[in-house]
């Protein structure tokens, strides 16, 4: 029958129409919904945030670092330690939005993740207050406080990490500000206009020339190229591509080995090594993840080389941590920690888990993100870093009873006051370890300050 054939064509057409609804709805859900849900016209977000009590943030010992209280005008975020964690935990304000962990873990804190959604249904049925997940950080509040006190009014960053796992123990950035929502409302304009750029978290978002701490990387490249037993001639200065490189205080060390050059932080020798290795010597940078995005629980600025092609001078300058190189303190910490860890770079993390009533919604899985150098090379550089602290430029970091390893750095910049670096780690007799990076912005000549802070923090952490 002819009509039936046409009816089937019609059935196919109707099926296609229904299918188009399903496909469109699915595509909408996949690609448009996340953006539309955040629309300012969404009246739900406010209501839902009000109905679900935001989760609490704890340090590794159960100390409360951020919590929410219900008051007359709804919820209020309370930070018991004021500005101490602003650059790690961030703020949560109705007017200015959220930053740092408050933003990146908002899904869990505000109970929008799937597990919390299921739990809030249970809450709704049982009539309990709906709450988001709590965050358990790897940070040690006592250490954070101690490091912050040592930093005092100086601008800069101190980060401490467990080199075996990548767990952050402390992360201090200065300058900082009060994350309290009411305080922010009153001071927002002056904060945004401040010359000190208080919004830049120095530890994770500040880019600086690493100075001589970069010699850790250059030393690795030199060892890989078989230069470990070579004798270098240090006459106090060397000219590469028309630029003159001199040592600190214009010293000349004569014929020295690689570890002696490292110990004295000889610019002449390391610039020459950079020049000798040339483009090949820069291949190691990729393995150290330079120029690559490092995933972390809060946003991290990419450390890398600025500008286009590298001239002979650029390469030599980079070898001593100057020139086009710009790195974050977190990045230098990962470099130092990888030497302790047999050349493996661990994934840094600060949120151990997000959970509520022992039901876990998120759990961090420590892991390796890159292998920078092999264990043998790492061991050799590690020995150099030990010598550096024992009788080189890093003696201020010495702590009796601990094996401290490290490298200092004095990074020249556009002002006459250089950045003061220390990157290293320490091992206690009981097997505990800690990696550290201290960076003091525009601290002037001499590395004693950053190294001595590093020593004190390591001592506090491991003793």
């Amino acid at each position, binding site marked *: 029958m*002819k*009509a*039936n054939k*046409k*009816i*089937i*064509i*019609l*059935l196919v057409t*109707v*099926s296609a*129409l*229904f299918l*188009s*609804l*399903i496909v*469109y*709805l*699915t595509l*909408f*859900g996949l690609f*448009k*919904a*996340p953006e*539309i*849900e955040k*629309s300012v*016209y*969404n*009246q*739900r977000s406010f*209501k839902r945030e009000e109905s679900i009590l935001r989760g609490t943030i704890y340090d590794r010992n159960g100390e409360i670092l951020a919590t929410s209280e219900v008051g007359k005008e709804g919820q209020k975020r309370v930070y018991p330690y004021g500005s101490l964690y602003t650059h790690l935990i961030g703020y949560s304000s109705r007017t200015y939005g959220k930053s740092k962990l408050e933003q990146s873990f908002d899904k869990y804190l505000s109970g929008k993740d*799937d597990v919390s*959604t299921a739990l*809030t*249904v249970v809450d*709704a*049925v049982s009539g309990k207050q709906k709450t988001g997940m709590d965050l358990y950080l790897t940070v040690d509040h006592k250490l954070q406080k101690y490091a912050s006190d040592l930093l005092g009014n100086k601008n800069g960053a101190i980060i401490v990490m467990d080199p075996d796992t990548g767990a952050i123990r402390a992360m201090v950035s200065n300058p900082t500000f009060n994350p309290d929502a009411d305080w922010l409302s009153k001071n927002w304009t002056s904060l945004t206009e401040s010359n000190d750029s208080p919004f830049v978290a120095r530890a994770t978002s500040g880019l600086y020339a690493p100075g001589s701490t970069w010699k850790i990387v250059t030393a690795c490249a030199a060892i890989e190229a078989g230069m470990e037993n070579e004798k270098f001639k240090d006459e106090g200065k060397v000219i590469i591509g028309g630029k003159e490189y001199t040592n600190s205080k214009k010293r000349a060390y004569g014929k020295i080995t690689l570890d002696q050059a490292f110990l004295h932080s000889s610019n002449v020798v390391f610039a020459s090594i950079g020049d000798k290795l040339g483009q090949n010597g820069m291949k190691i940078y990729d393995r150290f993840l330079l120029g690559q995005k490092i995933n972390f629980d809060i946003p991290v600025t990419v450390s890398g080389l600025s500008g286009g092609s590298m001239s002979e001078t650029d390469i030599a300058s980079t070898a001593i941590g100057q020139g086009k190189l710009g790195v974050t303190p977190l990045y230098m910490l990962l470099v130092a920690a990888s030497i302790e860890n047999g050349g493996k770079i661990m994934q840094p993390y600060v949120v151990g888990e997000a959970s509520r009533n022992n039901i876990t919604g998120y759990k961090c899985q420590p892991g390796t993100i890159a292998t920078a150098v092999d264990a043998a090379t790492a061991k050799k550089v590690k020995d150099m870093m030990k010598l550096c602290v024992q009788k080189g430029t890093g003696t201020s970091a010495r702590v009796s009873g601990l094996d401290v390893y490290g490298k200092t750095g004095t990074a020249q910049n556009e002002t006459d006051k250089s950045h003061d670096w220390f990157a290293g780690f320490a091992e206690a007799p009981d097997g505990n370890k800690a990696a550290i990076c201290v960076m003091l912005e525009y601290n002037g000549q001499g590395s004693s300050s950053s190294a001595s802070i590093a020593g004190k923090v390591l001592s506090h952490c491991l003793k």
Partner: protein
Amino acid sequence: MKKVRKSTPLVLLALMNILGYSMLAMNADTFYSKVEIGIIGFLFLCLMFICFFLIKLLNMGDNYLFLPVAALLSVGLLMLMRIDDTLGKKQMIWFCASAVCYFLAYAFYRSIKVRDKLFWVYFGVSALLFAGTLILGTEVNGSKNWIFIGTQGFQPSELIKLLFVLGLACLFEKEVQNKFMAKTAKNLLIMCYVYVNLGFLVLQREWGIATLFFLVYMAMMFVFGSEIKIMVLNALIVTAGGFGGYKLLYHIQTRVDMWINPFSDATGRGFQIVQSLIAIASGSFAGLGFLNGSPEYIPEVQSDFIFSEICEEFGILGGVGVIMLFFILAYRGFKITLSVKDRFDKLTALGITAIFSFQTFIILGGVIKLIPLTGITLPFISYGGSSLLTSFMALGLLQAVSKGTEDELV
């Protein structure tokens, strides 16, 4: 082949309702007391099972037709119960009346043997209803399509849908021999009938139902008119009409502009569609869960935009489930259309199936912004007496047609 027990879908349906009403009861006292919720849920389940029982007992043809409808109705009633404190109760009363109408429509179609000779009755009643609306009608939301008797309003255009299909079936029924003149005359007559109907709807600004009528006409013409030229002509007329309307009428411009970019006027003309999209977006795929959504932010949530609320609470997956239920209904409709022998029966079944399919597509496509939004109800789910009564009467007619084919239906 594994044998599926025939009662399994019914058990699932009952389970879904019991679960739904239990959840409502646990959150009782917002709109209804526990007792009220219990009574409404119990009545609903009873009425549904009485319908199933009667269909089986009276051997009313396709046993499966009522299943997807019962599922859609359950979803609709549960949503209305959680939206506010009156609609659910009212809809329950409408369902009682609709169930009666469903059996009446069935009885009418089975008993009146001259049903295919009543063109002037169908058309006459439509014309009276149209005229009545224009004279006595009240404007609601920009469409003059309501008649109020006391406080109780109803939409005549809903009932006219059925009369339109029956009228068209009468006109298409008489097969014309291969004479050019006679064929043309018949085609023109049908066109006249259709455009008179469309004209009335346009006067009432019922764009959604006008679109629906046109699509139903095209579908019936495609199958039984077998005139490509006439179809092309119609498509041209409507395209020209639509384009002219877009140029001249602000009302239609708004629909199209807000379809292209609702966020350009999100608090004004695009408000409805923006809030609908936000509701669907906040539900994402899994949904926020029954009773966890915010219907108070969705405009017209009880009728045109009820699907957005379903998506918010049951997620896009739940929404797809509802679409699939409608598809099953359409599929059964097509199956009946294919199996039935009598030409008038076939036309009626096709017309009703087309109404269910296209009406669903027009409103769902509108609220998810696949096509421009035209206000029209979602069959069996949206709140509304006229809509529910008409949908059930249409279902009754389809059921009656299926009775003649029961031997061939599987």
